[in-house]
């Protein structure tokens, strides 16, 4: 009934001679939380970055919201997007990185309001007000004027989540959001993500947190050597997998 928000079929990608994606088939419907697990170097982060066009795709089809990513159909031919087409496309997708990537020269509230001012064209005051509301949502209003290096890893990642949410994205991408965190800081970030999922946000989450995938994910996909080996409900993939590769991986991480 629902059209897919992200639909990939046969997506391939290589860096030089190294084939990273070997024909990925993947689908996310609006409101779904889709978790991607798999060993390091299996191509799951690269695939996530393809979804918001931070990486280009070599072959296959990748559609977001019903149209091809990176190309515009005009006069019977596909034309590559211009710089501002990419910018407009990405402004509707939030991304959270493994290493947070908060802007080092701006404080927390400026990090959140930056795109509101420069991309959405809001006035500085309105953007600041909105940014404060977003920081409040992740419980960091008290840290608004702190620079990234004054915040803990968990706080930085929550600011990054607030920064992505401020632009009212229709899709949120998480690239191993807790992998760079000290163990005791992982939960605060996962809690923010869980709240987001409960609010109905469409999310694609590349993660090593099997517990999170089981609890929050609507679907779990297992990536290995550039393809999705298995995909389904958390219960099927994580507890009753038919694939020996999936089981071997889960044995190692659990």
């Amino acid at each position, binding site marked *: 009934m629902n059209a897919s928000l992200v639909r990939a079929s046969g997506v391939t990608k290589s860096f030089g001679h190294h084939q990273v994606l070997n024909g990925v088939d993947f689908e996310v419907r609006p409101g779904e939380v889709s978790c991607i697990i798999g060993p390091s170097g299996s191509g799951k982060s690269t695939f996530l970055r393809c979804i918001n066009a931070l990486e280009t795709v070599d072959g296959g089809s990748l559609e977001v919201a019903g149209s091809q990513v990176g190309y515009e159909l005009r006069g019977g031919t596909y034309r590559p997007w211009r*710089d*501002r087409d*990419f*910018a*407009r496309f990405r*402004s509707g997708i939030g991304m959270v990185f493994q290493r947070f990537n908060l802007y080092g020269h701006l404080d927390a509230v400026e990090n959140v309001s930056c795109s509101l001012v420069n*991309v959405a064209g809001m006035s500085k005051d309105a953007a600041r007000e909105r940014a404060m509301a977003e920081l409040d949502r992740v419980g960091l209003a008290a840290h608004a004027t702190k620079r990234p290096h004054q915040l803990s890893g968990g706080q930085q990642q929550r600011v990054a989540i607030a920064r992505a949410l401020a*632009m009212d994205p229709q899709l949120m991408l998480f690239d191993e959001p807790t992998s760079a965190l000290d163990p005791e800081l992982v939960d605060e970030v996962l809690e923010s993500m869980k709240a987001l999922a409960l609010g109905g946000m469409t999310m694609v989450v590349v993660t090593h947190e099997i517990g999170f995938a089981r609890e929050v994910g609507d679907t779990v996909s297992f990536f290995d050597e550039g393809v999705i080996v298995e995909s389904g409900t958390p219960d099927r993939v994580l507890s009753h997998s038919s694939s020996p590769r999936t089981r071997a991986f889960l044995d190692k991480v659990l």
Partner: protein
Amino acid sequence: MAAPHRRTEPLPGPDGALIPITPRMHWGRWVIGALAVAFVLWLVASVVFNENIRWNRVFEYLFSPKILNGVFVTIWMSVLATVIGLSLGVVLAVMKLSRNSVLQWIATGYIWFFRGTPVLVQLIFWYNLAFLFPFLTLQVPFTQIGVRWDTNDIMTGFTAALLGLGLNLSAYFAETVRAGIQAVDRGQTEAALAGGMTSMQTMRVIVLPQALRIIIPPTGNEFISMLKTTSLVIVVAGNDLMTNASQIYKQNNLIIELLIVASIWYMVLTAIATFAQSRLERRFGADAVRLVRGPTFAQTLLKRGSPAQQAQTATEAMASIEEKATKR
């Protein structure tokens, strides 16, 4: 370099009792130090008490109007040439990093040309531009509307100096800016792009402000260097400090005296610029600066902390040693 930390707290002996430390006298260091001081004093004295230098004439000229005027021109010229060099350098760096290969090649060629030819040659070239283009014309194409100047009116020693020094600095500075831009973490660019910014916005709003903190310290050095490089302007009679000093000594033959006058002023200007640089660095992210230059003398002094703090760390160290000893 700071002296190595010297321990004064006593150490536990074999039976556990504390035994004090007797400091070592470094006789070799004292002898070499004394010899070095004697040599430096002899050098200074041989200049200061040299009867061939007329110090009264040095002081007479130090504040003469012509010299002061030269000082003013030198400052003004250094500031303007540095501003030209810095702004053009940023443009060149962005060109060199652009995806447009034509722009890349133009920037590379420019940098090669201006770094490949001596600045002295460039100064003389600009001064003599009139041989190539007797008139400079700004005109709206296909109309009679425009302005036209005699090149010799425009290319005074001062403007030739500005162009020569500014364009030359921009070529060197472009490399500094490029390194600064590339030192900004790639993740910053990705976050900005993911946030919906265009590549131009990303450069302007996110990357350049952060690159600035890396670029600032060398900028101060470029300006300090520029203060003295302006003395080359003597070849195009730019009316700077060195030109004016040379004009005076060509008349009265007090060569050494006027070189001393000029040197004193250059040293004063350099001292002021060095002070300003340290203030500037403190304003622009101390972290980034510390990576490029070590802490200043004052910072080193402050960091040593109060005697109370030192005593405390010493006591802590003692406690941990005793703890280890009892474990054994």
